[in-house]
């Protein structure tokens, strides 16, 4: 009993750590930071020029297993809602784009792929997990941020996109 009394505080402290979470720096409701990145097709894409559409920005890398899982599901979303005022931007965060291009041969997608090889945009958007998905409304404001990907997230995305399209 005495041992338990002495060990308990340490155990409680240790367990308390598990409850701690990190704060999110990208504020929901604020205007999403603007950026210009080169896309796979060669042209530059500027975020602010997409105002009027619901935009989903997905940060991914070829070495990230959940990102690879998510890709075909993002393609489905793009397919379904692109004509209804929705745009999906796949931002690849790798310094060397070759691995990304190889993956895209295996998992082909039709939505624009942008290369953030200097990680300026990743820093700007305070990407703290891989993948990170940010959904912006038609006015360019940040509405939803998803950190990571677990099976089932795509249903959340669909609900949120439909909601923002109807606004």
């Amino acid at each position, binding site marked *: 009993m005495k041992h338990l009394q002495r060990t308990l505080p340490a155990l409680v402290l*240790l367990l308390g750590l598990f409850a*701690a979470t990190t704060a999110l720096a990208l504020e929901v409701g604020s205007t999403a930071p603007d950026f210009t990145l080169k896309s796979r097709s060669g042209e530059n894409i500027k975020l602010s020029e997409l105002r009027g559409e619901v935009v989903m920005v997905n940060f991914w890398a070829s070495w990230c297993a959940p990102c690879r899982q998510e890709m075909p599901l993002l393609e489905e979303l793009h397919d379904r809602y692109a004509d209804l005022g929705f745009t999906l931007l796949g931002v690849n965060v790798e310094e060397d784009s070759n691995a990304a291009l190889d993956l895209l041969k*295996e998992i082909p997608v039709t939505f624009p792929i942008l290369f953030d090889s200097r990680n300026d945009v990743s820093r700007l958007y305070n990407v703290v*997990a891989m993948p990170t998905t940010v959904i912006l409304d038609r006015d360019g404001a940040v509405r939803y941020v998803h950190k990571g990907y*677990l099976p089932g997230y795509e249903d959340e995305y669909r609900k949120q996109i439909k909601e923002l399209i109807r606004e």
Partner: protein
Amino acid sequence: MAPREEVAVAAAATDKRARFHWGLLAAGALGFCLPLTAAVLPEDRADALYHAYSGGGLEVNGPSYLARKQLGKYTSLFGNYYVDAISSASIDVVTTASQYTERREEKTLGGDFLYEKTLFNLSFTNSEESDFSARSAAFGISHSMFGDLTTVSLGYGQGWDTIRRRATTGSGTDPDFEKKADRQRYRLGLSQVLSKNALINLNYELVTDEGYLNNPYRSVRFLNGSGGYDYQSEVYPNTRTSHALGLKVLYYLPYRAAVHGEVRGFMDTWGINALIGEVGYVHPLGKDWTFEASYRYYTQSRADFYSDLFPRQDAQNYLARDKELSTYVSHGLGLGASYHFAQRGWGFIDKGSLNLKYNYMQFNYQDFRDLRVEGYTPGTEPLYSFSAHVLRLFISIWY
């Protein structure tokens, strides 16, 4: 009492005693291993391994099958089936003692559960052979924090061993001999990302055993006063507590290769101190092949109650002549080659690999003597040494 007959009949084997650890150890190594990353479940995979050990007159080989599958979003289950087919004519089996054969079967079932950034794991293992059964359970928690740069892990395992003894006449085990040993393991681990290219891992483990910790077949020898030696049964303390602390480093080389190093220290209440050092190199060749090489150094100082030759009968309260408790140095060399196939997928398989790993181990004892040679005054026999070869041939598939 003719010492050699006693030893022969008992089919004493260093390996036998050592195998008493195996139940808990194997559970530990598989299910009890601190989880690899704390924010994702382990990958689904299946492995079929053929293992073979040959050294010092002992040969052990057999299969090990592992299958792991994710169920739902937060759970991953696994099972392992492992067999050792043992054939031994090791140094403790001196004259006409027949080589003995044995078969050990071990089964493990376990699961990993993910909750946010914490991974919980639980496993149960059962090991059976004709004169030894071991049951164990292990539990672990692993948590990622500080931007996933730090992973802290805790683990606890408990094992229950039942030790029997082969009957001296006929077959089966001696019905009057059944002993128990309980074991507990506590683990703490800290894994830290140092840079984009370096990882460090610190592990501490406390193991405590209680019960019948020696080998029912082994004996110690003592000078019998008439120029020769006689045998008596070994006597061990019925508790043992040990501490081990290890540090591992992994570093990524820019042309795509990795170098790793490990230093580990060990000490226990039996007086054994050990130091382990290992360095290794992993080199992928193109997309299809990966090669590796490693060197391992091990040095140990003997247990307090160990002696190759005691001065008289009942010289001490505790007596041991197990070479694994003696003073020795061991060198090991490892080589491995892996071929990655189905990299773009094939049916339900995402990728696969075919692997061959070979290890060579050399053991040089400093206070354990080779009694198989004749014509030496007791205590002046040549020191024993042996080398062993370990082979692992396995195929892995991810799905």
